[in-house]
């Protein structure tokens, strides 16, 4: 083996950890939270879109008639509850 090859076979010195592993673990945790939020937002958007389209479907129209025939205050209460729930969910996601 030549002198050069002997020199080349010496690997570069290992770097000390210096908190590197902790940084990677913290970034993995951040990435997981970000992914969970994104998934929740996509799911929320999907549910909102489905709800928005519901009145235009046969099932939605049938449901509307059923609810309206029960009590006029019920649809209003349900709508308000849905709005409050959505606002709370969005706020939680933003936090």
């Amino acid at each position, binding site marked *: 083996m030549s002198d050069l090859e002997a*020199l080349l076979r010496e690997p570069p010195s290992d*770097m000390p950890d210096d908190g590197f592993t902790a940084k990677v673990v913290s970034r993995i945790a951040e990435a997981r939270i970000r992914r969970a939020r994104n998934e929740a937002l996509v799911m929320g958007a999907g549910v909102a879109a489905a709800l928005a389209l519901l009145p235009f479907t046969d099932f939605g129209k049938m449901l509307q008639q059923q609810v309206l025939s029960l009590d006029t205050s019920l649809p209003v209460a349900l709508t308000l509850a849905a709005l409050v729930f959505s606002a709370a969910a969005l706020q939680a996601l933003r936090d």
Partner: protein
Amino acid sequence: MDERALVAQAVASHDAAAFAGLVRLHQGKLRALLLRLTRGDRALSDDLAQETFLEAFRKIAQYRGDGKFASWLYSIAYSRLLMEARRRKLEAIDDAPEQTLDPAPEIKLDLERAMEKLSLAERAALTMCFAYGYSHEEAAKILNLPLGTLKSHVARGRDRLDAMLRLPDERKIA
């Protein structure tokens, strides 16, 4: 827990704690490799090392265990380094200066300084084949290069280093 068990646990359950064990095991060598390949740019090499581990964690299910875990990491790291070099157009990383001899011939260059004068591919090929002990075939796979190209980088890099590290008296004889 040994590496095999950590890999198995990280693959099976996408377990961040098991993966942290793998980071602890491999960060020293991976960061040292990237530091050499980036010509001593500590900030860039650490960023790339972090991105490498994050990508490895995302893709851990794709690791089939048919090679060393370190080889898989180095492969991700080198591909990230190439992307970064292209994105930033980092001539400092990728270009091989035309000059092969030390401008001050009376000073013998040490290996790290001499390595900095090689191209990225030459530095990577030499480090993989000599310092990290991979065969030409394994190194070609890690660096995603055809075997012949890898061998050319090794031969050319070795010749250039040989010329740079030779003492002035030896140059005269040669």
